[in-house]
């Protein structure tokens, strides 16, 4: 039997780092600035396509023409006002939709009876084109701001509901068991287990809800709007002003992309407890 008690550690600081190199199967680290890759690439393709004539201006205006149209809209047609009007609408609608959707999802997620009442109608609602429901909404809420906000709320409610419901139902049953033995009431269960557990799902829903609320503008601003990006696009479509349409689309693209990235960024923050392939 040999017992070697440990001797003092090596004194020369050797900071060689030679690790076991194992093929990484996950996606690895986030690339810095990768946020800019996609848009830059899209812009590059668009510019090159337009410059070489592969993309005809009749089909898609060149970026530089869009810049000119943008300036024109900004200076002469109150583009800022349009943007603000639209953002306001979609923000109010989104907030309404997100709150209602999340509440409905929790009710229907935690009670089979609630589910049987809530789930079917929502599934049916989402199978039916929004455009086709608008007449109903006009009848109920008029053609004013109310109808627009409610329509957007209903559009963004759907992804929030479905994702939160799905996320909630995907919570590992063992945490519910734990909560049962801890002796908490339904409210605490929702706050401490259901909401955090469904949060990844909810956030994914948010990504869809945000874009839906923006896209919904195109539909609702058909109706009795005098400002808004959707209105601008609608008008431009009727006149066939491709460059103005593209201005609208670019604004949509920018807002959508930024909002989406913001939700994903928030997600990475608030989901710090997860150890997943996202890393």
């Amino acid at each position, binding site marked *: 039997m040999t017992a070697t008690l440990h001797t003092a550690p090596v004194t020369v600081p050797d900071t060689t780092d030679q690790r076991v190199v194992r093929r990484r199967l996950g996606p690895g680290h986030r690339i810095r600035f990768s946020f800019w890759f996609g848009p830059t690439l899209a812009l590059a393709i668009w510019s090159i396509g337009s410059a070489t004539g592969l993309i005809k201006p009749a089909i898609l205006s060149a970026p530089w023409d869009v810049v000119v149209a943008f300036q024109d809209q900004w200076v002469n047609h109150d583009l800022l006002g349009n943007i603000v009007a639209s953002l306001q609408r979609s923000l109010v609608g989104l907030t309404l939709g997100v709150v209602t959707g999340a509440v409905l999802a929790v009710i229907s997620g935690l009670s089979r009876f609630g589910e049987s009442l809530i789930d079917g109608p929502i599934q049916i609602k989402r199978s039916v084109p929004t455009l086709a429901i608008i007449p109903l909404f006009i009848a109920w809420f008029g*053609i004013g701001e109310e109808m627009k906000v409610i329509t957007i709320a209903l559009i963004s409610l759907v992804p929030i509901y479905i994702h939160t419901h799905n996320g909630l139902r995907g919570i590992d049953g063992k945490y519910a068991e734990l909560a049962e033995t801890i002796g908490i009431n339904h409210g605490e269960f929702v706050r401490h287990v259901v909401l955090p557990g469904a949060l990844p799902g909810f956030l994914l829903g948010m990504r869809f809800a945000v874009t839906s609320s923006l896209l919904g503008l195109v539909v609702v601003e058909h109706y009795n709007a005098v400002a808004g990006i959707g209105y601008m696009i609608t008008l431009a479509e009727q006149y066939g002003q491709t460059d103005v349409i593209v201005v609208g689309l670019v604004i949509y693209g920018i807002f959508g992309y930024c909002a989406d990235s913001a939700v994903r960024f928030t997600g990475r923050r608030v989901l710090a407890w997860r150890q997943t392939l996202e890393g």
Partner: protein
Amino acid sequence: EAATRLELSAALPDKVPTGTTLRIGDPQIQAILGASGLDKELSDAGVTTEWANISGGPQSIQAFRADKLDCSSVADIPSLFAAWTGTSTKIVFQAVTQDPLDHPIYKLGVAPGVNVASPADLRGKRIAYSAGQAQGALVLRVLQKAGLSQKDVQLIELTSTGDSYVTALGTKAVDVAPIGAQNIKLYEAKYPGATSINTGIRDDASTLYCLTTAVEDADKAAALKAYVAIRTRALLWANDHPDEFAKAYYQDSQKLNEADAKAVVEINGDKGIPASWDNAIKRLQETADLLSTEQKHDKLDVTTLVDRRFEKVQADAAGDKVVTGDAS
């Protein structure tokens, strides 16, 4: 296939080279040709048609821009907007309604409980308005004729999609809105107390407009010449065979029931082929001028939008059935 280029001033060739294809969005004529047997004459003339179920301004302009369509049947507004947005087109066919004021395309629907008996009563009313659509131009023209300006009424921006105008009226979101004459009965039946008035202006412009590049293609120009002649005869055939027309188009293609189909044909009235395009061009110019002031577009000389070489093709094909004078 690099077809020979044909100057816009050159005479239209008669001979249609075999295999010449026209891409046309003209569903009504398509149905009539089938019902009347005129489609056979068309193919005998050497014209191959590639039918697209496209009609109306936005869709046809989109298809033109993508160069997926040669011609499309529309009213007058689309060719103006095509010009304003840089797509060069030519009108190759003009038709009118024989009694345009008795058979208007649009009427003004009036919301239940609102008192509008004539265009003069429009003052102060909320009117549905859609800047880029034919309905919008119509509203402007009605106001102009009633001696009112945009300031005298309240224009409510509202796109006419589906039955959005009917709904807006029925729910009293607007007081007045232009509604297709064929839908007026339905509207009045649906909403008790709803009424309608005639606009008192002509809205019967009916054209076939084509990509200028198609007209400049010698082969296609020849085919178009044949098509325009046969299209003329098709319209006249429909005048003489309203029931067959109703069946072929409104029943079979547009899926209406027999009674509704007949009613629509009746409401739309008979088509006429003008002996001269002068009046039509004059009305088009007026519309262009009105829109360019009210909607701030460039001034436009509409004679650049029509190809009058087809005027005679049409008149010849109609023979003594042409309409002249005020009717045209």
